[in-house]
């Protein structure tokens, strides 16, 4: 696997606030990545640094083997779809689609036209008058039809309804299959995208806390539930990610279980339940104080 982006020991401080804290990871060519984490975790800052829109405080970034800062050659390969993309005041969607080929050499106008129909985007209405979902649709269309070798989608679907989001996932998969490229999806709707992702990078408080293939993450945590005493015995000596109590019942989320562990749990009368990627991330990025307040 070749890496199209290599980030090492990257940090970014805004005054006293550390947005990115010693992050090291790489983005593999022709792979769909999930860049996940809570609000303010540093996802957008990371993407801005990688795309040369901001200066790092420390560390290094290689974008297609070069520094991204003021580097139009490396950046020509990149499309960054932002949550809050701004357009010139008088712009209509058709102006956006018309100017897109100037920035994206791989732009496919026919594909863009199909997407406009899929998302029912009115081409001749002023962008200012569009709904939030229609505004998001423009970003999604540009991101897909640009076919940039590296495309970032930063929360691309604010206001998009469930049908439109499903259309986005379907078109992304179809087009990715025919035109493999590198995609980074940053989103809070983890359950919706988890099956699309090949690699998952989780950021929390500016640090990379998970960088793994999604196959490895699946089944990396299990919830064990049953009588409190039996659960206590079973989880003794294991790292417990999360715990809940209900009267004499208890459930605990622990790391991967071996086949022998599973048999032992079943013998002890414990129920085992899988933990979805979303739950896993919720549990690894929630601080203890919040849990004690919540439970």
């Amino acid at each position, binding site marked *: 696997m070749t890496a199209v982006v290599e980030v090492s020991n990257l940090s970014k401080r805004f005054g006293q606030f550390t947005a990115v804290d010693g992050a090291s990871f790489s983005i593999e060519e022709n*792979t*769909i990545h999930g860049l996940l984490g809570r609000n303010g975790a540093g996802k957008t800052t990371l993407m801005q640094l990688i795309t040369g829109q901001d200066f790092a405080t420390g560390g290094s970034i290689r974008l297609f083997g070069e520094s991204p800062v003021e580097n139009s050659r490396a950046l020509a390969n990149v499309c960054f779809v932002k949550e809050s993309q701004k357009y010139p005041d008088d712009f209509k969607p058709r102006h956006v689609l018309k100017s897109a080929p100037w920035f994206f050499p791989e732009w496919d106008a026919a594909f863009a036209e199909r997407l406009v129909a899929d998302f029912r985007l009115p081409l001749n209405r002023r962008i200012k008058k569009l709904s939030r979902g229609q505004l998001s649709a423009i970003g999604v269309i540009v991101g897909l039809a640009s076919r940039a070798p590296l495309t970032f989608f930063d929360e691309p679907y604010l206001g998009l309804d469930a049908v439109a989001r499903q259309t986005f*996932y*379907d078109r992304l*998969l*179809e087009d*990715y*299959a*025919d035109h493999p490229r590198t995609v980074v999806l940053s989103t809070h709707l983890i359950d919706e995208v988890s*099956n*699309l*992702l*090949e690699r998952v990078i989780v950021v929390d408080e500016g640090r990379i806390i998970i960088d793994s293939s*999604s*196959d490895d993450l*699946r*089944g990396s945590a*299990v919830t064990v539930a049953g009588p409190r005493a039996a659960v206590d015995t079973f989880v003794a000596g294991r790292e417990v990610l999360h715990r809940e109590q209900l009267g004499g019942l208890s459930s605990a989320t622990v790391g991967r279980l071996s086949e022998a562990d599973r048999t032992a749990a*079943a013998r002890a009368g414990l129920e*085992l*339940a*899988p*933990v*979805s990627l979303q739950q896993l991330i919720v549990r690894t990025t929630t601080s203890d104080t919040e849990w004690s307040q919540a439970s």
Partner: protein
Amino acid sequence: MDESRPIFVQIAEGIENDILSGLLAEETQVPSTNEFAAYYRINPATAGKGVNLLVDEGVLYKKRGIGMFVAEGSRARIAAKRRDQFASEFVRPLVAEATKLGISRIELADLIRKEEES
């Protein structure tokens, strides 16, 4: 999709099920990786991993430039493999649940017989 197991394993099992049930006959072509990916809404690389698992096991084979085909004799091979797993995957949990509910072995046998008749 079951959350606890890798998706590619589930894709491979799904193809095996279709071969077992006769939906995919031996020597016929199976859908392409991209078709699986679109159908199950999963990453094409994951679908590819599932298909390759079956190629490694000799269940599917590749015809260059055409696609993947079900190998001859794979139905019997899959059935043999599944038979080995039958006791641990089906019989053991069945007996465990019956014990929990106080269903005797004889009653359990009766239930199985009844199920067959209906």
